[in-house]
């Protein structure tokens, strides 16, 4: 942390925020500096979304905002008022795993599991956006989601399987 000479500011006003969170309108009252990631984890209790770097370099915090892959650590929550946000907790349908979740289990596309929420949401968007037409294309499109355990070949296999079943 860098030290600065900036004086402490007066308490910030907390503002109301409503998101469509995993299909349900949800309202929070938050300070403006709260990121979408910290909102999900610390205020909404949705800890499936992970903080790996807090600066948009690892992809672990990937969620879908209005269907688009979004690094929630770089998104101020208030900016996304009214947005439709899908996290890993919202992917399974009434207990039935989403095909991408099932494919990740079948192909052992994770080890520690910490990057997995972000990988899966990223993968869902990559397939839906038509960017999974070849293994090389999958590798490229998924390169914003780091996996330190090194499950990449299995991640590619899982996504290719879901793509192939479409």
């Amino acid at each position, binding site marked *: 942390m860098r030290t600065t000479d900036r004086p*402490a500011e007066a308490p910030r006003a907390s503002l109301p925020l409503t998101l469509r969170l995993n299909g349900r309108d949800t309202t929070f009252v938050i300070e403006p500096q709260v990121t979408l990631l910290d909102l999900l984890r610390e205020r909404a209790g949705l800890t499936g979304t992970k903080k790996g770097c807090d600066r948009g*370099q690892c992809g672990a915090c990937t969620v879908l905002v209005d269907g688009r892959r979004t690094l929630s650590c770089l998104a101020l929550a208030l900016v996304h008022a009214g947005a439709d946000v899908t996290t890993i907790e919202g992917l399974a349908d009434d207990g039935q795993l989403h095909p991408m979740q099932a494919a990740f289990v079948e192909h052992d596309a994770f080890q*520690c*599991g910490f990057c997995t929420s972000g990988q899966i949401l990223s993968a869902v968007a990559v397939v839906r956006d038509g960017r999974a037409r070849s293994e090389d294309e999958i590798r490229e499109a998924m390169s914003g989601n780091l996996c*330190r355990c090194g499950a990449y070949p299995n991640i590619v296999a899982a996504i290719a399987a879901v793509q192939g079943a479409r």
Partner: protein
Amino acid sequence: MTSVAERPATRGFIGLPVDRVDGRAKVTGEARYAADTAIDAPLHAVIVQSTIASGRITEIDESAARAVPGVVEILTYRNAPRVPVLPFDFTAPVSEQLAPLQGPEIKYDGQHVAAVVGTTFEAAREGAALLRIRYESATAEFDAEAAREIEYPEQWFGHEAQTRRGDPETAYARSEVRLDATYVTPIENHNPLEPSVTVAEWRDGDLIVHDSTQWVRGTRAALAKHFDLDEERVHVIAPFLGGGFGCKGFFWPHAAIAAMAAKLTNRPVKLVLTREQMFTSVGHRMETRQRLRIGASRDGRLTALLHDTLGAASRVSTFVEAAGGVSEMLYDVPNVAVSHRLARLDVPSATAMRAPGEAPGSFALESALDELAYACGVDPLEILRRNYAAVDPSNGKRFSSKHLLACYERGAEAFGWSDRPRAPRAMRDGDELIGWGVATATYPALRSPAEARVTLAADGTVDVASATHDLGTGMYTILAQIAADALGVEPDAVRVRIGDSSFPNAPVAGGSMSSASVGPAVQDAAQRARREAIRIATSSAGSPLHGMREEDVETSGGAVRAKGEPSRAIAYGELVRLRGDGAIEALGSAAPDGEEKYSFHSFGAQFVEVRFDEDLARLRVSRALGVFDCGRILNPKTARSQMIGGITWGIGMALLEETVRDPRYGAVVTNNLADYHVPVNADIPNVEVEFVEEPDYALNPLGARGIGEIGITGVAAAIANAVFHATGVRVRDLPIVPEKLLGAPAS
């Protein structure tokens, strides 16, 4: 519900590619890692670190930080609870001999100097940014080769650090072929995706900690010593880890700081290191300069091997990067000298990182053997075979089970090795030069004493408990398989509970020893529970097997059955009810033995293809194949994943990873994942993995050796060797970034 008799016989899940039993929890976000702990209204702590490498704090101005709404406390050396400096030992593995927040002295850039505690993460973070700390700098040293203090450590983890056999200097001087080369490996950081976390809470004088640790019992012991508590009053919980790779194996000071903050505020405190802080505060792979002098006959038989390692160490840690260990045992060399030196510098402390010692050491040794092969005009694979050690040359003992030659053979055949032209720059595809490289992989098969408890419940479920961990290694799954086989149940009837210091003792999830240590303990506990179930089944009046001899019954399908009459059976759950006083519970254990007779090691062969586009200066690994001799493979699905992971680490080590410090001030300048390059998906080709499945029953009744680390060993050398084969350029300092290949000799 089907009756017991109709259920199929169940046996033999060990060796099957069973899906991870924790897979569903991980793909749904339900798996709770330390930072996900559901805790009521925790405070959040954000650490502030030193911005000088040596000297002392002269002034701390907390006024602006304390004025931030929500900041409730600031811990510095002036007000932090007192904790002692503790030595590293293998019961309480305190990494640094530098008690946190106890004084103004600074030993390295990035040392914890304060923790700002707030009611929200945002408040704590802002307070941390506003904390003003002034320092007085002292002269600092960062260059290992110029260090004033060089230490010759006596041992590393109980092994001698300076060893010799024969007369290596004389043999080297008299050798027909001599090679004298120095290999350099950089600082690397583990960078698990999960940063280190401690959530600490004091309840009636007891300390409860949710921690991202690879060793709940070690963390418990270290915390107990910090706060002068009986170990039973400290409870450490870690059911899931977001990777560790060694940086969560031993105890680091942030965990003590979280407990100190919780004590001072009398509230639960959540402390998560930032990614930047992960580069200075949980260890790293020590940078090494390894000088190898190799003497050989003209046909490539080794006569002398001298391996000296200079490591860059902190002033507050005893860790040794034992890169020379591999040179003692891997090849049949009569004259060997291994030396390790540590330069004491004003830098953060190193620690074990996936295959400590073997990963940098095998880069040097296997590169040197490749150089020797070219010097002797011998095929690089043939020179490995030619120096094969049938017994462990470091101690004369037999290997418990060694099938390295089969690894070479299967790998060469699968890779097509014999089709390879030996000369560098002889293979090309369009604009790309192609090179193939090979290296030996090796890692010791370690074990530690371990215990486990198996409980059969009235509802027919099986509970397995042990204080071991699953870092993504598959531990949950293989323990379920082992218990299932021992009891004759399906793996999904087994509930495995691990990562809790109150469970039966288990070692650190490191050193590739968990499967070989905890696996047999679980097997033992399950077999004891099974024997008790059989005893009840054959001795209880209400049992259909009453009066039968124990050898006339068997267990399958979750029940005890009469041999040859499978419908005459009683399920485990019914036996528990029949017994009448609660569950059937058995404690099992396993401990190392046979060391006096055998040397226990795993082996493998790494084959790699690289492509180098000279016009674009683009270097890629295009194929990788690892063939491994690791005993019996308990789960080929998770084992393959772990090996792919290890090879991926080797690719990162060879081509990408380097932590750079400012040479003037000692600060890490690559302290984020954009500047520190771990492999991304597009960096990794299809990696092939094969196992030579020869069970090692001398090691344990499962025949299984650990597999967590061997996958990385040899990979960096195989890649460097392939790069030489492709380009004619020998790179002896990692990583092999493209600029090191510019100026390659023209075709």
